[in-house]
């Protein structure tokens, strides 16, 4: 026989359900970033993340990621992460031999948070840029 449904179990259940949209933890974000950098230390610079610091609508936020490779190498890939989204990965872009190292798109932001761009160069060095964004109307919840 299953245990009786008490007020306590109901409350525990309700809290678990209402606890709401999953959010990535900083550890998960670091793990996702480590996957693309293969553990290389991230240095600031060489990559630029263009993103408004105040946005009204988190459902469509314009971003541009561009990179400037150091002399003697080229940009292999660009990556974007949103720390507090349910899934912190936004995109992974491999730059082909015919491409220029920049990409603009529109993204969803679940809440005010830090957005991180990472550029991986062909020589294996990894660079990053971060912008902290205030979001008035969050995405994902409507």
């Amino acid at each position, binding site marked *: 026989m299953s245990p009786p449904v008490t007020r306590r179990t109901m409350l525990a259940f309700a809290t678990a359900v209402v606890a709401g949209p999953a959010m990535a933890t900083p550890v998960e974000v670091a793990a996702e970033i480590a996957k693309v950098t293969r553990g290389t230390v991230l240095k600031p610079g060489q990559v630029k993340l263009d993103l408004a610091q105040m946005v009204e609508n988190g459902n469509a936020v314009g971003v541009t990621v561009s990179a400037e490779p150091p002399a003697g190498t080229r940009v292999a890939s660009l990556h974007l992460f949103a720390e507090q989204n349910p899934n912190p990965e936004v995109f992974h872009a491999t730059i082909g031999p*015919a491409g220029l190292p920049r990409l603009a*798109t529109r993204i*969803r932001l679940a809440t005010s948070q830090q957005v991180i761009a990472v550029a991986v160069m062909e020589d294996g060095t990894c660079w990053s840029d971060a912008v902290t964004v205030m979001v008035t109307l969050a995405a994902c919840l409507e």
Partner: protein
Amino acid sequence: MRVLLNVPKQVKRGEAIEVKVLISHPMENGQRRDESGQVVPRQIINAFRATYNGIEVLRLALHPAIAANPFLSFAARAEASGPIELFWEDDAGVKQTETAVVEVV
């Protein structure tokens, strides 16, 4: 999927070919619930690729954080006249291709 593709008709050699594409797609993020409380399954464009004269410009892995009706803007260095080809696929396995021809002068 309806598509708006903007590629310049003519570009000078060595300059950037700016490619802008807007794809009509709900990009269902898999987090929303419908009226009955059921999770609406994820349905997004998850892969995108662009080539210029058959050479790769960009290969993208996309995640649910890309806004509905995805807009992408990127560039290739103009070398010779030829096609810019775009390929993408969504979670339902629907594939689409778009082509625009650029004249390099």
